[in-house]
């Protein structure tokens, strides 16, 4: 079926008026992509995004969203919701063209109920503005992803996102009391009501993480916590990853809930000790950092300025934030040439890391919340760490992490400009499988790229592992091949040892091919949900590993 662009424009304008519909090439290019690193290879080459959508619409009310969905459905045109565009899995790519709905004009924080500890917020509100507004009223949602400046509440919910303080406050799906969703048929549904008092499946949990494939989340009732009265952040060091994970497991299983638990493996610890996140000075990456929170308000800092252009091999070392005075040998190793031989570099870095950072693995442990209980929990947490042989490094590493915790994403651009690439893979498993997961995935990625990891987002039954990898190839095709090989091998390794392929970045296009091995026969339920909520298969087609429709629409 071909799309008649004039008719599409007429129908969309009938809903939102002419000013909030665009078919301009600049807009279609912009909305054809998110921050998926694989898309950046083409962008770096100056190639236009492909595929592109047919139109971008900026609805302002749930009614307009429903009307746009109905209009697009009438024309058989796909519908793709768009939030902050910070996704890293290609979840917004209009693989079969269609109408992109940018929800960022739907930003109302409609009710903040102190008695219920619940707020009603629209999906397009930016995370930073949301938390700032809640902080002003004495509450927190407790969701602080490193993308908080460039992601939206609706995007978090659609991807089951996690914030850095998830160990206390939960992942976003743990904090939802109800959703308002426009389904694939253009109907508006609310999923509110205490699940335990209602019969039938928990629709909130069936729509969270649907990445626009079942419907568009236009607003949500989210659980709040009182703003923390006390924050205690400290650094620790343990001898090994195994000792660190064991300590974290014991802490969580005793019923203690620190807000932040981060354990860096030897390489990540080493890089960090050079200034990448918790060191006392950082002359290389300083200007690229997000600023620290404003001390007076406890709120978030304002947006960081754009990073300066950067070129050359130094960019890789710069991502790793290696200061001028630091380890010249290592810096040389981290040049483009060395990245072509990742196994060697992994080995070299491992050896240097061991020698230089003989102290072991760095941990950041943060507790926050109500004053009395937090103090008592902190004492119990520190006692467990001491029992595990952890050395207390004092408050400085904790403070430094807090101050720079949104910085890392902003350091990725220079790496890409230099011709290399950097990406992250977040997997998770139960404690019994966790070290297996760590070694298997690290080995799988390490065949192709320089890889480091940290453990964060801990639960009583398991933990997630966040791998950062840096790779390089000669050209775009080579980069794409290498990139695909890293993901294929990494995710296969994760599945093989019983881990999940994604803890909080979502699936999008990137992990779609792995969804069948993730869910096996249970995928039938997802397929059933898809047909029940989106019978015409028009909602963000091709994502979550769901089969895309046969689409022959003309490209604009």
């Amino acid at each position, binding site marked *: 079926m071909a799309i008649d662009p004039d008719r599409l424009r007429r129908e969309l304008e009938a809903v939102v008026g002419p000013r909030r519909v665009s078919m301009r090439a600049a807009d279609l290019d912009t909305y054809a992509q998110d921050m998926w690193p694989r898309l950046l290879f083409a962008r770096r080459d100056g190639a236009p995004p492909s595929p592109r959508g047919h139109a971008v619409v900026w609805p302002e009310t749930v009614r307009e969203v429903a009307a746009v969905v109905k209009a697009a459905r009438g024309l058989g045109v796909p519908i793709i919701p768009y939030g902050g565009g910070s996704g890293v899995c290609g979840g917004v790519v209009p693989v079969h063209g269609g109408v992109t709905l940018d929800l960022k004009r739907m930003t109302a924080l409609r009710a903040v109920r102190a008695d219920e500890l619940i707020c009603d917020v629209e999906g397009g509100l930016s995370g930073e503005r949301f938390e700032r507004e809640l902080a002003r009223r004495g509450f927190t949602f407790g969701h602080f992803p490193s993308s908080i400046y460039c992601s939206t509440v609706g995007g978090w919910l659609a991807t089951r996102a996690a914030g850095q303080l998830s160990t206390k406050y939960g992942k976003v799906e743990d904090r939802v009391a109800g959703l308002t969703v426009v389904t694939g048929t253009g109907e508006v549904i609310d999923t509110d009501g205490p699940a335990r008092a209602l019969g039938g499946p928990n629709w909130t949990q069936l729509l969270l993480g649907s*990445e626009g494939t079942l419907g568009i989340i236009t607003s949500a009732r989210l659980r709040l916590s009182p703003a923390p009265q006390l924050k205690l952040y400290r650094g620790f060091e343990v001898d090994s990853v195994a000792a660190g994970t064991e300590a974290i497991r014991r802490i969580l299983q005793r019923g203690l809930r620190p807000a932040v638990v981060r354990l860096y493996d030897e390489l990540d610890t080493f890089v960090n000790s050079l200034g990448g996140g918790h060191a006392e000075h950082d002359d290389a990456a300083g200007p690229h950092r997000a600023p620290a929170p404003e001390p007076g308000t406890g709120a978030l800092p304002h947006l960081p300025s754009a990073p300066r252009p950067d070129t050359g091999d130094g960019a890789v070392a710069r991502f790793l934030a290696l200061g001028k005075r630091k380890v010249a040998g290592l810096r040389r190793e981290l040049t483009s040439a060395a990245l072509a031989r990742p196994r060697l570099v992994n080995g070299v870095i491992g050896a240097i890391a061991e020698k230089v950072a003989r102290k072991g693995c760095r941990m950041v442990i943060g507790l926050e919340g109500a004053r009395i209980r937090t103090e008592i929990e902190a004492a119990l947490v520190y006692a467990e760490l001491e029992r595990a042989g952890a050395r207390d490094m004092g408050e400085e590493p904790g403070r430094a992490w807090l101050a720079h915790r949104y910085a890392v994403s902003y350091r990725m651009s220079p790496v890409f400009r230099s011709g290399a690439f950097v990406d992250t893979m977040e997997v998770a498993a139960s404690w019994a499988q966790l070290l297996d997961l760590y070694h298997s995935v690290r080995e799988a990625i390490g065949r192709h790229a320089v890889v480091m990891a940290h453990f964060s987002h801990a639960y009583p039954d398991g933990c997630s592992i966040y791998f950062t990898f840096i790779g390089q190839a000669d050209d775009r095709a080579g980069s794409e091949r290498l990139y695909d090989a890293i993901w294929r091998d990494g995710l296969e390794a994760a599945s093989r040892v019983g881990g999940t392929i994604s803890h909080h970045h979502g699936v999008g296009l990137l992990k779609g091919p792995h969804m069948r091995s993730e869910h096996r026969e249970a995928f039938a339920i997802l397929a059933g949900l898809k047909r029940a909520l989106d019978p015409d298969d028009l909602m963000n087609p091709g994502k979550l590993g769901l089969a895309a429709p046969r689409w022959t629409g003309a490209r604009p």
Partner: protein
Amino acid sequence: MTAVDAPSAGGGGPGVPDPHDAADRALLAALAAVIDDDHIVPLAARAWRVEPGAAGEVAEVVRLANEHRAALLPVGAGTRAPRLKGTGERARLHLALTRLDQVVHLDETSLLCHVQAGLTGSGLERVLTPRGLSLGDYPPSILGSTIGGLIAVRTPGKSSARHGFLEDAVVGVSAVLADGRTIHTRIAPRRATGPDLARALCGSEGTLGVITGAVLRVHQRPDSRLLAAFVLPSMDAALAAVYLALREEATPAGLRLLDAEDARSWYGDGVLAPGEALMVAATAGATDLAACDRDLIASAVAAEGGRAADVALAEQWWKRRHSSESWPGPPPTFQVTATPGRLRGAYHAVCGAARNAGGFPRGHISRFDADGAVVFVAFCDGDGAPLTGAAAERVRDAAIAAARAAGGWLPGARALALDPYLIALRAQLDPHGIMNPGALVA
């Protein structure tokens, strides 16, 4: 007489040919090839209780039911009567998983327990207790049910402040879909790989799949458990104290607010003055935390004008809660769930309506968690005996209307606006409508 010899036991009657006879005979013959005759028990006309002994046998039974278009009605430990209506012209197989009562695997590193669906909660506790573990602070009264039943059927009582709603303990499920396919959802502490598919089966009452097993989070037994009792000037003050303490992050293992009438029927006269409320609380965990939580509750009580009461009142509550000994006085016959902001209104609305309708209500509020709590009420006459007959009906109807008006959720409530999607999902997964037909939506 074996089941195969009596395909339509109780049906038809001598001399009346049963039009379904041949079909039923074929179904039973096929079932007998899968399951021992001893475990195919005639119940009524065209109804059999089928007791598979393994997950593979469940899959085979479901496949056969699908092939023969027989209705599958899951039964748990039998704490609820099996529903015999609503299956139309179909043969009915009451699927009992009581033989699937094993702990498959206990992962003491991750504190995960893989159990078969027919194991009861108390059966699981018997395995966990000697290892210093427990399913959690759930009211012992629910543990007589099977794990499969606890997960598949919602009741608001399966919740605690410390360990949340029981479904939050479900990390993964194994289930058989209508076409006989067995699914195992992947086990991970959290995921971002699309919707949580295990949650489709939780609360679905067997309409989307037969749950044959589950992986549950279990907890370490607490180092300490502390009990405390308090008297507050009113139920309103008691509720205010609870939420004051919860805001300070107290996480009690058990908490109950009794109004003066309820307290009198449990503890006799002299504990409370009219209008006062009694709070009994249990805190648990690491000793310092248990003490901290108890002290936070005590401070909140003091802030709301309350005072400490004899701890024996709490000990008695805890002992009765964990034994089969029944409470004095008639048990509550009415319950309504309300969110934190609506609890007070729901309690007063129900009790007020009952009084206006000529009843003498007595109530308590418990099962606090992030969603709110449950108000339990018994409707009595002037002598404290349970109301019966028309008087009971009248009071009950008034209470139901009042609870609804106050924004509470009554048992069996459902988000009706979502029914079309549930129907569509069922049509996808169970095109022949064999899975517990008549449940949830007709």
